[in-house]
């Protein structure tokens, strides 16, 4: 810490920061544009002008850009100096020479950093009396709208898109005051993190097209903190609703998890909530072969109560995308031993292996933020950009760690972004990626290799052995792999923060074992490794931690006649297991009761279907792949009788005359009982304050103080103002009234601060710029490795992969758009998803005489699929990939052997 003097007052600030960061960290205001807390300084906009003095006695001073000046001991500076202020107002004046005066119709209005800074800098009167320049806009795909006239040339977009997110199809063109930001020609922005442009751009150039399609002013949104449900990373989001439909997703800053950003699946995949496939009413099939008919809440409750009352043959099947509370409620309803996990056996085994490894040690699982510190990385089997997008983004930052060192040597502070990049050029910290097919991250990898999963595992085992002789060695390793293993081993061993990343997407347990061995070997060699596992679903970890039985066991119970009534929670089994097996199982259930929010194949088989809330319509807790439990809150109340899964289950229980949950009054009671019932969840109650929590006797409002039309919104139905709904489940209010100061960090419904209406107000919520939130970043880590981990090495090393005679190992290939089913209900996501295909190595294709783009008939699990062939030279021979998760393809049973049928030629 150093002392600096601002307008006569002395402050302690962090000398790692530049003056702009220091000033903002102190809670003071200074306008800026080009600087971004995650991207550092480049000094382009000249907005952050301050006066710096040589010493205490200097009265002259010199105007300087705060973002380009390190916080040095004994700096004397002024924010209020008249010249500095004038400079700041002129910068706005210059920016406004060409900026349209279209705030009233601008998509950014009300959340516009330029608006805020204009007010802050005090420029009000236009003196430029000439024409403005105009630009042509581009089509950038289904997610992002482009309105170049609003551009103020802060260069943030290209810096974010290219330098931070690794995209290469957005750039700056032309020069002087004609600089243009866009693509080379109209077309879809290819980067998976393009949506963050919406928040990074300080004006309305890049805006959210999905919001625009059902536009509402930002201050009219009802918002609450939520957790992204589209993968296992648990990114924090803010969801916003108006007129009963979900309108947009914004990144919610969490210093430990996603920081400022989210991926495009998370941002744009929300439209399933508004889908016309939503189940709106309870559906009941009076007889087994009758059509389901809509019914009311009482009827359906009575019907199901009859089925489960005094019936000891009821079992429940939970879900890795449902909250802990809903899963727990189901378990309470059916009984501890009659609750099953709802994922395939192989998935179940994988996730449980992960949990064991994490509990045992040897290594800790890092948060996304901690991943950014890794200085040597090995990725085994995961195509992260598609299976855990935000982890890929973190790795892109991590590989720059070596640049920090280079910069340090040259005395360049790391926040001097352009200077660091110029000094370091294309130097990256070591990152090795072994996957079946090429991945986008390969471009920043030191080496990337294409292997079948067992061979990836063998490589991993060999790396472990290289690091520590105690780890079992690998026989018959090719020379190439052996030398690679040696190189990787050295690199990990020599690192300060070595990281191993793997996951369940290859569905290969050997990979998990190999990764654990590497971590153990590193630990034994005295290093401080971390290990991170990606998983398939938003609550895969949470569900696995509940120690439920497996789906196979559930099936067994039904087959054996030990169960006749099956309650399935938010889970389409057709996506989990082989289709025929699913049908067989569901047909065997005498009474099938399904709770879900979207119609799907499983609901179509049900005797009774209960309409449940989607994530934005209820509360819950999810555990991400890091073992961090995080809470999401209800944004808006669904139309009756839709209600939360846990609420239905409680109502069922009560209707059936059971006491288990009868006196649980609200959501928080479910959480509390769960943390009491299961020690592994004991910390989850404390993730957020209870419903009785008040600040200054007030609730936290979900609506902004500018929220409009409250009394008019329903006037076409009823001129009486509706009573605002009471929230018994949390300390939020469905109202614009309430406490306007900073809520507890887990309960931030939107970032706002006086004078700061855009996401830039996050500065005001942080202990220091880019650091944790005041009061601690939300979420609780539930799994820590044992203190002194003495984890034995896994010994079962698989045989090398042998390509078969006329048979191919069929693997799932993941796609950020397409492999996750909820987001596929967003038209834009569906548009970006690939069509069904089969990819195969070029040699294999040549041998089979099939051409790129031609149709081939491929048989897996005895079922033929006719698919367009995509030649992918990166695949190892003997391996084919099918896109994971696409409707109609057998993802659930992969990996499996398959073959080309004669018909394919």
């Amino acid at each position, binding site marked *: 810490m150093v002392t600096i003097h601002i307008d006569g007052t002395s402050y302690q600030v962090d000398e790692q920061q530049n003056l702009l960061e220091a000033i903002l960290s102190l809670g003071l205001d200074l306008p800026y544009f080009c600087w971004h807390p995650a991207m550092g300084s480049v000094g382009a906009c000249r907005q952050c002008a301050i006066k710096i003095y040589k010493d205490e006695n200097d009265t002259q001073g010199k105007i300087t850009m705060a973002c380009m000046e390190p916080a040095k001991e004994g700096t004397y500076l002024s924010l209020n100096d008249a010249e500095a202020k004038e*400079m700041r107002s*002129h910068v706005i004046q210059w920016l406004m020479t060409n900026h349209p005066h279209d705030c009233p119709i601008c998509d950014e209005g009300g959340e516009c950093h330029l608006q805020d800074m204009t007010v802050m800098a005090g420029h009000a009167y236009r003196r430029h009396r000439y024409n403005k320049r105009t630009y042509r806009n581009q089509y950038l795909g289904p997610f992002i709208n482009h309105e170049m006239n609003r551009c103020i040339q802060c260069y943030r977009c290209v810096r974010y898109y290219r330098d931070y997110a690794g995209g290469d199809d957005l750039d700056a063109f032309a020069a*002087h005051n004609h600089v243009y930001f866009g693509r080379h020609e109209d077309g879809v922005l290819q980067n998976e993190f393009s949506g963050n442009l919406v928040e990074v751009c300080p004006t309305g150039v890049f805006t959210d097209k999905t919001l625009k399609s059902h536009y509402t002013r930002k201050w009219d949104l009802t918002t609450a903190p939520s957790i992204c449900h589209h993968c296992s990373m648990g990114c924090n989001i803010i969801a916003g609703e108006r007129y009963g439909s979900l309108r947009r997703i914004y990144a919610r800053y969490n210093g430990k998890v996603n920081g400022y950003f989210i991926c495009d699946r998370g941002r744009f995949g929300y439209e399933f909530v508004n889908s016309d496939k939503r189940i709106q009413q309870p559906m009941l099939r009076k007889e087994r072969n009758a059509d389901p008919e809509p019914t009311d809440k009482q009827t359906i409750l009575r019907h199901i109560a009859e089925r489960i009352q005094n019936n000891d043959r009821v079992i429940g099947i939970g879900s890795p995308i449902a909250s802990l509370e809903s899963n727990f409620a189901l378990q309470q309803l059916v009984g501890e031993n009659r609750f099953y996990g709802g994922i395939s056996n192989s998935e179940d085994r994988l996730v449980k292996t992960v949990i064991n490894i994490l509990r045992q040690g040897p290594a800790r699982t890092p948060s996304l933020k901690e991943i950014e510190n890794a200085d040597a990385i090995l990725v085994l089997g995961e195509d992260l950009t598609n299976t855990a997008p935000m982890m890929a983004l973190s790795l892109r930052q991590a590989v720059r760690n070596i640049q920090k060192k280079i910069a340090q040597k040259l005395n360049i502070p790391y926040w001097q972004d352009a200077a660091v990049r110029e000094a370091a050029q294309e130097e990256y910290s070591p990152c090795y990626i072994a996957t079946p097919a090429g991945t986008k991250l390969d471009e920043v990898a030191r080496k990337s290799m294409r292997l079948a999963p067992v061979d990836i595992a063998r490589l991993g085992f060999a790396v472990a052995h290289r690091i520590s002789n105690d780890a079992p060695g690998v026989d018959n390793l090719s020379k190439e792999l052996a030398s690679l293993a040696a190189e990787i081993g050295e690199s990990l061993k020599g690192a300060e923060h070595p990281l191993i990343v793997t996951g369940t997407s290859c569905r290969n347990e050997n990979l998990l074992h190999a990764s654990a061995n590497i971590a153990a070997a590193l630990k034994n060699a005295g290093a401080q490794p971390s290990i991170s596992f990606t998983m398939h679903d938003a609550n895969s970890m949470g569900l696995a931690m509940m120690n439920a039985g497996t789906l196979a066991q559930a099936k067994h119970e039904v087959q054996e006649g030990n169960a006749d009534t099956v309650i399935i929670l938010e889970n389409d089994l057709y996506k989990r297991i082989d289709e025929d097996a699913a049908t067989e199982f569901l047909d065997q259930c005498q009474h099938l009761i399904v709770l879900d929010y979207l119609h799907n194949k499983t609901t179509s088989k049900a005797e009774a279907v209960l309409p449940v809330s989607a994530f934005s319509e209820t509360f819950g807790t999810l555990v991400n792949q890091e073992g961090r439990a995080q809470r999401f809150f209800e944004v808006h109340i669904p139309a009756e009788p839709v209600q939360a899964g846990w609420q239905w289950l409680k109502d069922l229980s009560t209707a059936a005359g059971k006491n288990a949950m009868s006196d649980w009054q609200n959501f928080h009671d479910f959480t509390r009982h769960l943390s009491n019932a299961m020690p592994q969840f004991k910390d989850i109650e404390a993730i957020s304050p209870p419903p009785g929590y008040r600040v200054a006797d007030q609730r936290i409002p979900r609506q902004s103080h500018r929220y409009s039309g409250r009394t008019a919104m329903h006037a076409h139905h009823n001129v009486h103002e509706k009573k605002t709904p009471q929230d018994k489940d949390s300390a939020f209010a469905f109202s614009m009234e309430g406490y306007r100061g900073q809520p507890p960090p887990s309960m931030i419904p939107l970032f706002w601060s006086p004078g700061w209406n855009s996401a830039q107000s996050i500065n005001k919520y942080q202990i220091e710029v880019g650091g944790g939130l005041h009061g601690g970043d939300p979420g609780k880590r539930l799994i820590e490795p044992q203190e002194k981990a003495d984890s034995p090495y896994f010994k079962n090393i698989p045989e090398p992969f042998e390509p078969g005679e006329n048979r191919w190992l069929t693997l799932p290939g993941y796609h950020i758009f397409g492999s996750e089913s909820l987001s596929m209900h967003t038209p834009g996501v569906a548009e970006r998803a690939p069509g069904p295909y089969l990819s195969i190595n070029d040699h294999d294709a040549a041998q089979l005489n099939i051409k790129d783009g031609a149709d081939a008939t491929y048989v897996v699990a005895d079922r033929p699929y006719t698919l367009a062939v995509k030649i992918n030279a990166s695949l190892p021979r003997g391996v084919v990939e099918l896109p994971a998760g696409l409707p109609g393809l057998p993802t659930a049973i992969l990996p499996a052997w398959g073959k080309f049928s004669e018909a394919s030629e």
Partner: protein
Amino acid sequence: MENVLTKNIRPDQRPVSLKEYEEAGGYQAARDAVKKKTPKEVQEEVKKSNLKGRGGAGFPTGVKWGFVPLGDDAPRPKYLVANADEMEPGTFKDRVLLEGDPHLLIEGMIISAFAIDAEVSYIFLRWAYKKAEAAIEKALAEAYEAGYLGKNIFGSGYNLDMFLHTSVGRYMCGEETGLLNALEGKRATPRAKPPFPQTSGLFGKPTIVNNVETLCSVPSIIAKGADWYRKLSATEDGGTKLYGVSGRVNKPGVWELPMGTTMREIIEEHAGGMRNGLRFKGALPGGASTDFLVNEHMDIPMDYANVSNAGSRLGTGTLIVLDDQTCPVGFVLNLERFFARESCGWCTPCRDGLPWVERILESIEQGDGRNEDLDLLNMHTKYLGPGLTFCALAPGAMEPLQSALKYFAEDFERHIKEKRCPWRH
């Protein structure tokens, strides 16, 4: 006075060949430096000579070299770049050297590269200099052939490669960090300083960028010594300087004169005075981005300190003369149009301020000026100043404007009052 820079230049301006250059004693200084001196010694000699950068900023060359890390653990490769972009309007001095005596530049670069122990050097040439391009290409081939470039030059064990890069336009290529970006194949936007190129420059490695005239001064300093060099002029700055004159004078041109020759001598003697019937109204002493000097400055010695005391900059030393039959508002408008067009578009004040200035001047010149326009112009001269913009382009652009507003205030006011340009009728 002995000429240092132009001594070999032939009257017919055909480039001096290697043979001719060597016959006149060429490459001896480089040979001596590389074989008999250490880099430090070369640096010291140049420091002692008080040679100041001829690219416009006048920074002492030896001192600048001194910031480059030397020794075995210095980052490598290190680079030397000759800034032959010369795009400052009214400046045409480097062209004379490039076209007339390319070996002088190459020799100067060999010595300078050796002084910082660089292994790769570039000549960054502006595209329009086609004759220079041909001359340099030929001279480079000759020098490689003779073993003065490449591996083990002069049999000294020192290796130096030299490449020619011709640009594709833009004034910003002359700004040294913009130049480095252009050499890396990127947009010529400037880089932040610090870090200075001396420690983190081309491809992130230590780099020196020097002006052509600066580099061409080096061989004589090494051959004849710093003391000798300093005595070539009467003023502190020492040495000789290429001075030029353009505008409506009788004999526009470039001459090598002792540093500190007066403006009067340059204009009246060397440039033959004003053309018939015209009177001197003012001059930009060193290219478009310097402040006007006027009649009262005729007798000051044109060196760094004296021109600076007179409120301007020596800049490139090539004067642009404004005569009394030329509209000063139109003159400044022409300059600002250039600067606005050449702004790289990186920083706000320059990108958006200069076009505004251009339009205001245009209105005034066309008889549509308003009184508040002068306030706006003054605002720009103040807030587009050094340190407020990212690089020196915009502050340079403000120099002729601010001095014009001072010396020719009446002319601006007349335009506004009479709603016309008095020179046009």
